[in-house]
């Protein structure tokens, strides 16, 4: 059993290596094959044919941030739900009610966000 565990994560590591090696290898190989004739015009930022003006890293809409916050909350919720779901056979009704209370509290938060129009993209 211990061997399966170690070997499995060894495979994951090998896959990570292949996943990094392929792009690195292919791009290095491509470097030998492709032309390289840079010019000022080629290296300008694309902006539908206009000359690009000022930096594009401007202040961004706050709503992206709100969704990121919501995501963190509910993703943490799933972290609690997963072990509960796996062990549900052994836990029974008591754990179900407990989880229901926990989720209800988070759902209250979702309803609050809903009412505050956080979920609206306008």
């Amino acid at each position, binding site marked *: 059993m211990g061997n399966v565990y170690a*070997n499995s994560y060894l*495979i994951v590591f090998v896959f990570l290596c292949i996943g990094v090696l392929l792009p690195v290898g292919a791009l290095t190989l*491509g470097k030998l094959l492709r032309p390289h004739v840079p010019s000022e015009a080629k290296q300008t930022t694309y902006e539908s044919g206009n000359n690009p003006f000022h930096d594009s890293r401007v202040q961004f809409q706050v709503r992206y941030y709100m969704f990121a916050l919501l995501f963190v909350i509910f*993703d943490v919720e799933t972290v609690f739900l*997963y072990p509960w779901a796996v062990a549900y056979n052994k836990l029974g009704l008591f754990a179900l009610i407990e989880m229901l209370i926990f989720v209800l509290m988070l759902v209250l938060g979702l309803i609050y966000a809903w009412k505050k129009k956080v979920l609206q993209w*306008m």
Partner: protein
Amino acid sequence: MEQLLNSVPSWTNVAIFFGLGAALLLMVLAFVTYGILAERKVMGFMQGRYGPNQVGGRWGLLQTVADVLKLLLKEDTIPKAADRPLFILAPILAFAPAFMVLAVLPFTDAFQFADIGVGLLYYIAVSGLTTIGVVTGGWASNNKYALIGGMRAAAQMISYEIPLVMSVLGVVLLTGSLNLNDIVEAQKNVWYIFTQPVAFIVFLIAAVSELNRTPFDLPEAESELVAGFHVEYSGFRWAFFMLAEYVYLFAMAALTTILFLGGWHPVMFLGFIPGPVWFALKFSVVVFVLIWFRATFPRLRADQLMELGWKVLFPVALANIFVTALVKELFF
């Protein structure tokens, strides 16, 4: 493979795993090559035109190969205003997790790699990393379209990850394990698509959205954002974003087959047809459905997209979990 997994970890094992992984990589690249061709052909058929029919015979069999060669020989331009190290890093960040998720997918009982206890969680966790690559690409390009596309992609991918993760919980509840082998084994008699139909629908919609495919292709909306986060990418760097997308298509179709369509298990009395054929059949059906979606549905608006995710799919997925738990408590 099972024998190999049980042996003592050693450098020989690493070498063998590397060889097998490389073989899988070739298989996946072949799938991507012909997956793209199939997509173009099927969409051509649905739209009443031919699709590729010049390169490589009547069916355009070498069209994608020619495209890849063209990309390989194309000049690679990095804009002056871009953040150079991040610009180079982004395609690798997007591609590596796409290939890593394949490590845990059991294609058949013999053809599979890592057998991890938390396989499903691993898939979800690692596939989430691609978002970082996409945002990095959008940010590093220093282009307005790219930044908007990257931000949209991030917002969309994290919003739909919640329903995706939650819908799968119904399956986990019924199986009592996160191991994908156990999940397939539990579907020997009844597939989860029949016992968890709501979860399946939520999962499918969220999966299409995670893949950034039509009707959820806002991050790349050609008509408004040119190409979204990869506007500034050209040549092979661009190819790796595309490759990541299609490797995810492969992975997601395989995962759908494993979670809901019973993996390699045959349909009732047709057990004489071997498992790999069944897996390939179900897998192809899922891929076909995804292509069909692309040819059929118009793109959603950004506000509709977010509201669908948070106000419809998420509550439905949550309700599904508790209904499943309750039914399991009362009747089993």
